[in-house]
């Protein structure tokens, strides 16, 4: 027995070192793109002359991925010499990153709360402008196996409902809508993001999910959408603003003008967003 005593150390150490090495690799590779953009390319360009040039980094809520990608290409085409680097994530993640010093020129949030956090921290340049609104819709798998037709159907026993947790904006909106309608929802899961809700509906694991109307439209044929009148009880407003730490103010303001202008509003309306009222 005593001879065996020292031996297990070998395999144990190996077993512990491998995942650590893997972890380190993952962390290193994960870091690379985050710090990269706009680090060396943002010169003083665009500061003096009229036409914007150079690079700007735009942090935008995940729900803006399709529309902002399109508007960035439009902006680059309309302003030769400019490059728009986009970073999409949950609004609170992005606000947290900017708070920790991430290099953003423009921030477009999916709610006013996260923009307010940055305003309170003195990180916003000027006043944010509300450029879009969004309301909830019911997402169901293709074919609607549970036969969902209205908001009250979500409370039916046996319906597997997935919503966002109330700590994130889409969950707060879902709770508000249900509360206003006097319905008690009993979800099987409360997810961290709209994409997680959509994933579980699209894969057929859930019978229904509460997400934004634009998310349903963006998901295409993977899910079907059902609009409901109670959604007007929780309208989500999207603000956009330049960042005080931004290094290319002229291009940032030009990009915000595009988003809030007629051209940008047309793109947003096409994706199902409501007007922001600015």
């Amino acid at each position, binding site marked *: *027995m*005593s*001879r*065996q*005593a*020292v*031996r*297990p*150390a*070998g*395999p*144990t150490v*190996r*077993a*512990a070192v*491998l*995942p*650590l090495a*893997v972890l*380190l690799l*993952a962390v290193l590779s994960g870091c690379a793109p985050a710090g990269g953009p706009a680090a060396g390319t943002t010169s003083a360009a665009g500061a003096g002359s009229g036409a914007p040039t150079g690079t700007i980094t735009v942090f935008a809520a995940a729900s803006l991925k399709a529309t902002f990608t399109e508007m960035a290409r439009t902006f680059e085409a309309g302003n030769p010499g400019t490059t728009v680097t986009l970073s999409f994530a*949950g609004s*609170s993640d992005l606000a*947290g990153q900017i708070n920790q010093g991430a290099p953003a020129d423009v921030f477009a949030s999916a709610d006013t709360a996260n923009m307010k956090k940055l305003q309170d921290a003195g990180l916003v340049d000027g006043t944010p402008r509300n450029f879009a609104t969004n309301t909830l819709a019911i997402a169901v798998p293709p074919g609607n196996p549970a036969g969902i037709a209205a908001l009250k159907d979500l409370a039916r026993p046996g319906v*597997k409902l*997935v919503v966002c*947790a109330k*700590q*994130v904006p889409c969950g707060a909106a879902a709770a508000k809508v249900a509360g206003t309608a006097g319905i008690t929802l009993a*979800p*099987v*899961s*409360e*997810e*961290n993001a709209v994409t*997680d809700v959509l*994933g*579980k509906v699209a*894969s*057929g*694991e*859930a019978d229904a999910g509460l997400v934004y109307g634009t998310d349903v439209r963006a998901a295409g044929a993977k899910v079907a959408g059902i609009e409901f009148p109670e959604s007007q009880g929780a309208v989500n407003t999207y603000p956009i603003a330049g960042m005080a730490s931004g290094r290319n103010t002229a291009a940032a303001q030009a990009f915000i003008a595009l988003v809030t202008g007629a051209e940008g509003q047309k793109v947003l309306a096409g994706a199902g967003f409501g007007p922001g009222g600015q």
Partner: protein
Amino acid sequence: MVGQGYSGVPGWVRALAVVAAVVVLLPLLAMVLRVDWTRFIPLVTSDSSLTALGLSLRTSAASTLLCIVLGVPLALVLARDSFRLQGLLRSLVLLPLVLPPVVGGIALLYTFGRQGLLGRAFDMLGLQIAFSTTAVVLAQTFVALPFLVVSLEGAVRTSGSRYEAVAATLGARPGTVFRRVTLPLVLPGLASGAVLSFARSLGEFGATLTFAGSLQGVTRTLPLEIYLQRETDPDAAVALSLVLVAVAVAVVALAYRRPAARSGAGKRPTTPVPAGGNSK
């Protein structure tokens, strides 16, 4: 553990070793410094925190048990049997070590989910795995099993098969040899493998979120609770992270204390045992 002997570690190697230790320890220290100690106790004893911690401990214990039941036979077969494609099987079984857990979650979803490979059969039996605590245990077992298999296979290989051969010549049947000789010999390796599996289960996040969902008391384990708290209350996330770090430190300490304690209690062998006699 050899005591005296050659130890000519070059200075630059030592310097890099210090850097390596800092890489691991500094972020943990930075987190500890951010803990809001005045709110620490209320934050970690809130209803949602305790529910998440309890669920984490229960599911991790269940998945560790499952890892032992399934992992011991697999490790023995990999170490002792020889068959075609054995090397390939060994590599494939270790895949969850290097796969991003979210990939594991997607794979599990398409296996046990409602529309999955086995899900429809389970559905007909009235069993629904998705969104249940069972799904959490399955996800944890998937990612933790390789830890036990690697630990135990190494232990089985290094312990050799001499004692078993002797037992067999004395008339013991394979079942008896396994119970009375093999298992006691590799027990330390099995214990450290089980502890590592438990630790991995406790930290499981990606596969659980993808496959099991997130609901308080049912599927929202401590890592998922931390991720959710971070959205609104970073202080709560930091406090809960510290709890998880403390549990992890305790688990690792347990895993590494065992062999040392045993060799201290028993007689130390006069000749050091070579570490890697096997070709791997």
